[in-house]
């Protein structure tokens, strides 16, 4: 089994990056590997509660995220400094099972992986 980390670094709307990262992550989880995800930089905006993008003609990305553990993506990491720089607290996140980690822990996490997929 390989350790594969998806790194999602873009805001949920404005570009398709975050949505297509999530699609790839959900597809990947079906292949029996150790699939994990790290949200950092503007990617942490994906985790906010109460996203209402209907006016943009978009579906809510945040609403899809609670399904991740059902897809066997159990290790969901969030970069602590990215949250802090954007004034987001843990209570505003749509998932309560995330692991909030600092920059040093991020570098250790990256070093443990067999493959990184960057979005």
């Amino acid at each position: 089994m390989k350790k594969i980390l998806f790194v999602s670094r873009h805001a949920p709307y404005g570009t398709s990056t975050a949505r297509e990262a999530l699609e790839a992550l959900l597809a990947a989880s079906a292949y029996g590997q150790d699939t994990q995800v790290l949200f950092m930089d503007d990617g942490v905006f994906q985790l906010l509660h109460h996203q209402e993008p209907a006016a943009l003609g978009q579906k809510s990305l945040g609403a899809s995220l609670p399904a991740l553990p059902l897809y066997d993506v159990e290790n969901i990491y969030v970069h602590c400094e990215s949250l802090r720089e954007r004034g987001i607290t843990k209570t505003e996140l749509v998932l309560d099972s995330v692991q909030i980690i600092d920059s040093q822990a991020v570098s250790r996490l990256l070093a443990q992986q067999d493959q990184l997929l960057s979005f």
Partner: protein
Amino acid sequence: MKFSLIVQAAPHSTQASTSALSFAEALLRQGHELHRVFFYREGVHNASALTAPPQDEPNLPQAWQALAGKHQIELIVCIAAALRRGLLNEAEAQRYQKPSANLAPGFILGGLGQLLEAAVESDRLITFGN
């Protein structure tokens, strides 16, 4: 070493696709193996048969085709990303009743599973365009 590449950027818009191509050529020159190139997101435009840049500029879809033909490399285009962006092969053009197909020869529509398979089978998976 066995490599796979994921290309997420359109040709002729950013440097990423050209860099991916140069990287592919360099690794092959050094005796490594290129298992698969997976085109995702805007990267699907690399597979357009209709790209017609000015004559004094490189034609990236043609360059990918030439590389793949010479070294027997799989060029897989994510079908979900491609259909959204109007990149269709004959079968999909018929299925969706579109007036024509435009997927260049040498490129194959495939699923995200083939990206995962590349991640599992390769020693290195390198992302271009993000």
